[in-house]
């Protein structure tokens, strides 16, 4: 199964890191994303945006990884935001009401703006 995680600096705010995830995020693939996000949190980033646009499936394990990343961000004091979720992925956040604490921004630029303006 194709699954990939890439990190790059946001072009307009290079101190922010954009994490792009491609594939299906479940218990088989979540450890790889968790590993990347844990390492990123330890590198004292100014902020992290996870681009979910390449994810066509996300389950409760994937949600748990994103929730863990939010917790680390709050503890370390950096901004964390999600962007670009497909409708079937957004639905999982809505069903679990996690959208209340993990807002989904329509685009990466809007997620970056939310962190910068916070």
């Amino acid at each position, binding site marked *: 199964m194709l699954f990939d995680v890439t990190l790059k600096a946001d072009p307009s705010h290079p101190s922010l890191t954009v994490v792009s995830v491609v594939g299906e995020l479940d218990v*088989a693939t979540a450890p790889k994303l968790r590993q990347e996000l844990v390492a990123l949190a330890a590198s004292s980033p100014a902020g992290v945006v996870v681009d979910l646009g390449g994810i066509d499936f996300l*389950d409760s394990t994937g949600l748990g990884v994103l*929730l863990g990343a939010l917790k680390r961000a709050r503890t370390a004091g950096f901004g964390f935001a999600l962007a670009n979720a497909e409708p079937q992925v957004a639905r*999982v956040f809505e069903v679990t*009401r996690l959208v209340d*604490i993990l807002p989904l921004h329509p685009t990466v630029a809007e997620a970056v703006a939310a962190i910068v303006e916070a």
Partner: protein
Amino acid sequence: MGEIRLEIPARPEYLSLARQVVAAAAAVEPRFRSERIDALRLAVSEATTNAVQSHADLGSGERIVITCDLDEERIEVEVIDRGGGFDPDELPAVPEPGDPERLEFERGLGIPIMRELTDESEIRPSPEGTAVRLVVYRSEASAERSRTDPAVDAPDADVRDGGE
């Protein structure tokens, strides 16, 4: 009515296959709405994830069995494991999203998701393992009709409800 039976090794890398097979089985009935198939795909994945975990906890090498029973109104899926079994009523409640404690719970959402996304769900634990039964109707309207009058079989429903 047709039944499909899939046996998979109890390993995470087979979850994707289980999802694909169940979604493809539902799609055999062209009137199944795509958001309903997405809901089924996720519910089955959660049930199968729990099954894989329960086999891992026991070190069991047995396979997980997934059956799909499809008719023109609904699909019924069973996920049967040979793990230790568990009592769903004894699971800890996940705090509300606004509760600061919510961030301490990275797990525990699988069963609430299963229940929320299906029209019927049942978890049957036994000493031999757990069977999870999930039912999804082809549309909201079809599910609603089954709730109000389970005896009615409505193959001509599209005529009455405007071709959903």
